């Protein structure tokens, strides 16, 4: 404390009086030209390092396989082979993969989000004796690694004839996702209860309160969950990889692996890059349109699905 009284210069003390001014002085340190140049340098260098591999992906998809082994390999192929994409399209059942991934992702966005919201509403707005125990159970399932349950699930799905179909990926969605239930329940609880009470006095049922008050007021949270669901379902690999075997029945993520391991004796890196670009493009598009929802979701909840 004594340092605070004796140490600082007059200007610092004056700044401390007006806190808004102080924020400016603290910030100003970062905005000095030299400091700002360093910040920009690091930002540009770093983000180039993180962004450049995507350019490399495109570049690599337009080469011939021999060019991968040239020394040095071309920075960018002088004659980009756009026909590689036609080869990718004609070699694997790419359209079927896109359709399968779209089905799973669409249901993930619509069904998974809706059911999660329904269950979350129950935890946020109803009370019954075992409710909190149940909620703890929901949260604890988030900690359960998927690999522990995968083997019995394969056996169960085999016995009901679901292996090599999309059913093991889609049917469990009717129960919602623990992670989404958690996010939405936290959000619903921030909505003032007076709104529910007023509607209930007017004779609205609980479901009506949910559809006309809670859901409309929760659009940002629901959007965040829907975007999460889009990206995680589109990227999902481990379970589909294990359930799906027939090429035509695979999702796109599994199809990418199929290009690597199921089609050729020799690696066809250029075609593998082509199918990889087809696989990441919808994610990139979704992310650019919805990055606000996505980043807010992570920041609010502290984890990714």
């Amino acid at each position, binding site marked *: 404390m004594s340092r605070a009284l004796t140490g600082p210069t007059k200007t610092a003390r004056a700044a401390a009086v007006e806190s808004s001014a102080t924020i400016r002085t603290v910030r100003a340190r970062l905005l000095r030209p030299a400091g700002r140049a360093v910040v920009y340098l690091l930002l540009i260098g770093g983000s180039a390092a993180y962004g450049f591999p995507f350019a*490399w992906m495109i570049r690599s998809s337009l080469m011939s396989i021999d060019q991968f082994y040239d020394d040095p390999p071309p920075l960018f192929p002088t004659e980009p082979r756009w026909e590689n994409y036609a080869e990718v399209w004609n070699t694997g059942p790419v359209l079927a993969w896109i359709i399968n991934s779209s089905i799973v992702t669409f249901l993930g966005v619509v069904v998974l989000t809706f059911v999660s919201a329904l269950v979350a509403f129950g935890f946020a707005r109803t009370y019954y004796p075992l409710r909190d125990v149940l909620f703890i159970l929901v949260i604890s399932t988030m900690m359960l690694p998927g690999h522990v349950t995968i083997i019995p699930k394969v056996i169960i799905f085999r016995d009901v004839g679901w292996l090599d179909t999309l059913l093991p990926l889609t049917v469990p969605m009717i129960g919602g996702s623990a992670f989404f239930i958690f996010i939405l329940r936290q959000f619903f609880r921030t909505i003032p209860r007076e709104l529910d009470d007023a509607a209930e006095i007017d004779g609205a049922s609980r479901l009506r309160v949910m559809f006309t008050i809670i859901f409309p007021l929760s659009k940002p949270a629901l959007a965040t969950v829907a975007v999460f669901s889009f990206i995680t379902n589109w990227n999902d690999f481990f379970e589909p990889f294990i359930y799906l075997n027939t090429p035509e029945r695979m999702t796109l993520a599994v199809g990418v692996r199929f290009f690597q391991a199921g089609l050729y004796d020799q690696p066809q890196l250029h075609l593998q890059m082509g199918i990889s670009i087809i696989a990441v493009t919808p994610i990139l598009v979704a992310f650019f349109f919805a990055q606000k929802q996505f980043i807010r979701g992570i920041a609010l909840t502290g984890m990714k699905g």
Partner: protein
Amino acid sequence: MRRTEWQRWSGILFAVPWLLQFVFFIIIPFGGSFYLSLTDYRFRGAPRFIGLENYLDLFTDDSVFIRSIVNTIYYTVVHVPGVMIISFFIAILLNQNVRGMALFRTLFYLPSVTAGVATAMLWLVILQPNGLLNQGLGLVGIPGPRWLTSTAFAMPGLIIMSFWTVGTTMILYLAGLQGIPQHLYEAAAIDGAGHVRRMWHVTVPMMTPTIFLTLVLNIIGSFQVFIAALIVTSGGPANSTLFVLLYLYRKAFLTFQMGYASAIAWILFVIILIFTLMQFVIARRWVYYEYEEAE
């Protein structure tokens, strides 16, 4: 049921969809997997109960399994601190007040959104002997190793690859940094603290809850690394990147030793559980929760 009883319990109806999923897709498979781990089940015929034999075999008679545990620990010990340090620096950089920040945040975050099979495939290309990484190293005069075919460099290759997808940790740090009240920095500045001391005495203590969260999440994640090894190295060369989960996959779905693989699943599960609980105990010594007493 009387009307009051109905009112008391009707809320549970909202949980019914989740409960169905819990019973059929979580608790039955969870119990089933423990039971299978005590059998010699091979996907055909009936499981035969063999007690703890699978577990004994794994620890006393399966050097590949031990290798996979060692590999997983090696990966974790380098990957987790690396990701945390890199993310922390990027987050501090992204927390500066300069123009165009939205674009920079997007670029740093993009690899994490797309993380999966496709980007693993990309790294298979990047880590080729004359791939992007070695071209880059060549520019600064370092001859790059053969990342994918050398037992010494395959694991470092995968770890470098993992440093590309640090987005989730980075965003958590960024949110944490933005939650630190500005008046603490003002007070420290008035007390004469420079950049370094403000970082060490304000930023780091205030960030400990976030650091703890990311530590737990990253360790859990790194014990379950799978796609990178499957796509990029296939666990090789000479099992040098064979992780526990990849070994589990091979035993369960390539050789169909499902009882044996279930034992692997349970060992991995218990390791993750112990690690996580241990961290929560140790956390009391170093994590600072500002509002702990007020709550």
